[in-house]
């Protein structure tokens, strides 16, 4: 039974696209057949983060409008044979996506894949509502920061009211994914704690991705972080999150501060 999962946040720049790529790759690395779909019409970036930017011929809107077949628009990942990308259009016409058109494509993708990951655009406009419209599950990407938490709360409200599941009286299964977590700042009380965020959003935790150079390095070279450096802390956190999505129970790892050499030599304690 295929699962449609939307990666959303409300706020921009929190790590939706990075997380879609990393979770999609992690699920594919675990043997699942996965497609990642870019819903950010006009500002597509999933192709770039996945390293497929030079292979885009057709896109989501071409398929919605019947210009191309789904099979023509899907791009197979060069590293993982069970990972595919459906890119967004660079067309600026936001209205090119229709609810019926998206519904047809999602149905088609459901029959071909185990997982359909929808990378939502920022905001609460049409693109974002269409990305979540047919979702069974949602990953709400949140930074430990007031504006991000507020927007996540808003998005959770929309997931509970504007999705097909919600309209049928069912629930979209929601998970919070905390990204850009800085353990040092959290320890010093400069950043909202995991407990604070979860209490405020009242939504279960999928994983905690530490702020890391490895994430930027991976997108620089166009490779999901779970593929680019599988041993890195963020890659392991994404891998654990993917296993939780598959229903496994994995002990939550809370990132801890890595002390620098100088601090260790001087015997400093960084709280």
């Amino acid at each position, binding site marked *: 039974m295929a699962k449609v999962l939307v990666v959303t946040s409300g706020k921009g720049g929190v790590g939706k696209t990075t997380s879609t790529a990393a979770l999609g790759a992690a699920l594919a690395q675990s043997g699942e057949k996965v497609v990642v779909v870019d819903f950010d019409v006009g500002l597509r970036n999933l192709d770039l983060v996945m390293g497929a930017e030079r292979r885009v011929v057709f896109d989501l809107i071409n398929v919605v409008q019947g210009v191309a077949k789904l099979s023509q628009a899907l791009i197979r990942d060069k590293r993982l044979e069970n990972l595919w990308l459906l890119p967004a259009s660079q067309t600026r016409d936001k209205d090119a996506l229709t609810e019926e058109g998206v519904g047809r494509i999602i149905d088609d993708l459901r029959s071909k894949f185990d997982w359909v990951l929808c990378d939502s655009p920022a905001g609460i406009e049409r693109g974002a509502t269409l990305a979540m419209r047919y979702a069974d599950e949602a990953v709400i990407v949140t930074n430990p920061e007031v504006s991000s938490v507020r927007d996540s*709360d808003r998005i959770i409200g929309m997931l509970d009211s504007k999705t097909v599941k919600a309209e049928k009286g069912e629930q979209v299964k929601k998970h919070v994914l905390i990204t850009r977590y800085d353990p040092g700042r959290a320890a010093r009380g400069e950043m909202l704690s995991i407990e604070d965020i979860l209490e405020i959003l009242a939504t279960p935790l999928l994983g905690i991705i530490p702020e890391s150079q490895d994430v930027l390095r991976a997108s620089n070279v166009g490779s999901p972080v779970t593929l680019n450096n599988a041993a890195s802390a963020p890659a392991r956190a994404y891998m654990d999150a993917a296993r939780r999505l598959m229903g496994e129970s994995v002990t939550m790892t809370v990132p801890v501060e890595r002390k620098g050499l100088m601090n260790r030599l001087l015997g400093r304690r960084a709280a």
Partner: protein
Amino acid sequence: MSMNLLRLFSGRTASAPVARERLQILLAHERGLRGQPDLLGILREEILAVVSRHVVLDPEKVIVRMDRGRSVSTLEVDIELPNGFDKRIAAAG
């Protein structure tokens, strides 16, 4: 303990508890208003309609402020009236 000491020496206090409290107050209100019409907008318009039935108003001299507290919220409507506004009413009447 070590955390408190560190804060003492760095001269800074933790800002996370402030963030947490601000969010809790804000979201309690926002969740309550979700799916409902913009109450502040309605109040503003209806109050102005009542006042302008009797006084000629300059819309730019009307300021509506809302302050949401944990237990009590206030709505402040500040209307600047030109001098002699009451005479104008009399003249019009």
